């Protein structure tokens, strides 16, 4: 076994998951009429639970807590978690990443036999610490988060009777951008959840989001480039040492 996630990263992942899902669900429930992407029953359900004003207050409260906790995390775990994470998710490999996304999708949907019949080799290109799909979702999540935080703060705290309230036009554009960012993640999150929790062979990766540890064999199979890096640094041969080194 080798450590893949630090305890703080695991906590932030699940904290993030709870906040994102709540904010997404409650945010969609705030929208009405033609702007409601699910249906009227969705709004009725959530407003039935929280009340009309309560839902807006809850959305704003959870959003604010999420922002504050993330701000603290970024400040205090910049070197151990945040910067390595940003470095890893931006290690793009152009063609190889694209090939991974296409082949993995076809492997899951059509299976290897039919994929070969299409003239496409289903063998996946070797991946690093994160695979191409994880990198894509992570980059989108970071960008969407920045958009959601900026527009959310403006709508929540720079509107209404605030002395520093921004103009109506700015608020209207904030609303659209906030919705666009949330909509993007509403589409990507189910894919991430399926690929991480339900797709075959991902059990060890899911368990590593609870324990932080992942079997070396799984790394060799799913993240050969990371495995090669570990091997080059002599780490796979001494897994016990890795357990005591959070952030590896």
């Amino acid at each position, binding site marked *: 076994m080798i450590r893949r996630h630090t305890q703080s990263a695991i906590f932030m992942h699940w904290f993030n998951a709870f906040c994102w899902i709540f904010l997404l669900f409650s945010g969609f429930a*705030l*929208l*009405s*009429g*033609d*702007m*409601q*992407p*699910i249906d009227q029953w969705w*709004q009725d359900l959530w407003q039935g639970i929280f009340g*009309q*004003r309560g839902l*807006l207050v809850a959305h704003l409260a959870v959003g604010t807590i999420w922002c504050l906790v993330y701000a603290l995390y970024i400040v205090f775990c910049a070197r151990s978690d945040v910067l390595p994470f940003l470095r890893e998710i931006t290690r793009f490999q152009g063609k190889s990443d694209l090939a991974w996304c296409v082949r993995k999708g076809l*492997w*899951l*949907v059509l*299976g*290897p*036999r039919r994929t070969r019949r299409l003239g496409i080799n*289903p063998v996946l290109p070797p991946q690093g610490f994160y695979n191409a799909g994880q990198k894509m979702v992570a980059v989108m999540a970071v960008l969407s988060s920045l958009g959601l935080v900026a527009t959310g703060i403006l*709508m929540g705290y720079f*509107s*209404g*009777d*605030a002395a520093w*309230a921004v103009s*109506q*036009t700015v*608020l*209207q*554009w904030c*609303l*659209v951008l906030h*919705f*666009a960012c949330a*909509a993007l993640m*509403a*589409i990507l999150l*189910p*894919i991430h959840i*399926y690929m991480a929790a*339900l*797709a*075959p*062979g991902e059990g060890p990766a899911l368990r590593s989001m609870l324990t932080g540890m992942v079997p070396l064999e799984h790394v060799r199979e799913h993240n050969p480039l990371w495995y090669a890096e570990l091997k080059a640094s002599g780490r796979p041969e001494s897994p016990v040492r890795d357990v005591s080194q959070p952030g590896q």
Partner: protein
Amino acid sequence: MAHYIMAIDSERCMNCKACIIACQQRNHVPYGLARNWIRETACSTAPAGFRFQPGTCMHCDDPSCVRACPTAATWKDSDGSVKIDVSRCIGCGSCIKACPYHARFLNPQSGTADKCDYCQGSTPGEVPACVAVCPTHCRIFGDADDPGSEVAGVLATRKPIHVIPKNSGARPTLTYLDATTPEILPEGPTESRPVEAMRPMAKAVTWIGGLVLAALGGTFVRQLLWPSAREEEEPAANAAGHRASNRAREEGTAEDHRGQS
């Protein structure tokens, strides 16, 4: 449930503006802003040289302001009035832009949209201030479903006129009696481009999100019943089988050779 309607006999209006001031005072409307108005139209045949048309929120059926509000802070109530829940309003101004009568404004004190609510917010159960104060009784307000009410009487006996801005598609409930000037208002921009963009975006989310969920559901079932990994195991097992039989054959041939030699 009552069905409130305001009827206006604009021929009686003498432009004293008592209705505007009474409304401002009762509803604490900030200085310089008003929930109602009196439109003046030059007319040589009128005694004062002008025709006056008192107005306020038209409390439309299927109101464009309600459709424009992204947070459902404004709605058409079952009593016929269009209401605003200021606690849900974020002051984005979409409804203000959407109203073809320009009956809404941003209240700088609350930072939210503001408009006529028949004084139900300030003095619930009482006649609106503009109706109570009008010296010529040109504004008539009440429950149109109550046959004994004055408003039901005038609506039944006099010609109703609804003033509609050009191409707005508005369906106002505020009714002018017999005649009013003007009968058609000029067209004005009523769309907030950013918020309008949210409608097709919401549709896109519905369809793309639905397709993604359906595809994931299908993939999940497929992997449950016919795992892709098994498809790869079969050729691998076959290849291993072939290799083993080839090896056995080769070994057999070699032994034959040894035996022959």
